[in-house]
């Protein structure tokens, strides 16, 4: 799952360590997410979006197709 975490973090002038401390995770976890080597839990996804005051989709960009919505189902 691609993400814009690094850009968001740098936009706010935060180090990986500082962001990790705010979210109560390790710096290695932030580094792994930014490097697309780790897909965080739903809980951490929402914590990140809440922290940066944006939607989940502003931070994470899933690789799967998201074309169909419930209103398109018969």
């Amino acid at each position, binding site marked *: 799952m691609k993400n814009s975490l690094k850009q968001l973090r740098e936009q706010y002038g935060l180090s990986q360590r500082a962001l990790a401390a705010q979210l109560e*995770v*390790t710096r290695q*976890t932030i580094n792994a997410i930014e490097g697309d080597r780790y897909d965080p839990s739903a809980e951490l996804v929402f914590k990140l979006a809440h922290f940066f005051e944006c939607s989940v989709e502003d931070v994470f960009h899933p690789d799967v197709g998201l074309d169909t919505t419930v209103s398109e189902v018969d």
Partner: protein
Amino acid sequence: MTYPLLSPVVVRRLIGFAVVLGSLALAGLTIVSRPLVGVAAYVLSLVVVAAALLQTDSPVFDERDETVSKEAASRTLTVFGVASAVVFPALTVAWGLDMFEWQPWSSAIGVFVAVLYLTYGAFTVAIGSRR
């Protein structure tokens, strides 16, 4: 007297070092007929782990470590499962053909693998019934 807090990375390394050293001491001292000293060394390593965890105010382990641990456990079970599926039937056939004799060590490994998968099966059923 207060001590400066350690970084989570240092604490992780300290814990890893203590666990490895304690386990090696337990195994090594047991082999040389000093089991009580081995257990004492192992308990001491656990004390070091507990003390190390108190020396930082940042998370030392988090959800990523849990994910890594789960994947490692899954792969370990897979390796044991595949090896068991090949090795134990082959040994049983060899035993039936008088080409192999079960020894205490090979029987112990067989019992260990059986207990391992019985435990895995029990947890699978228990956890599955809750979700």
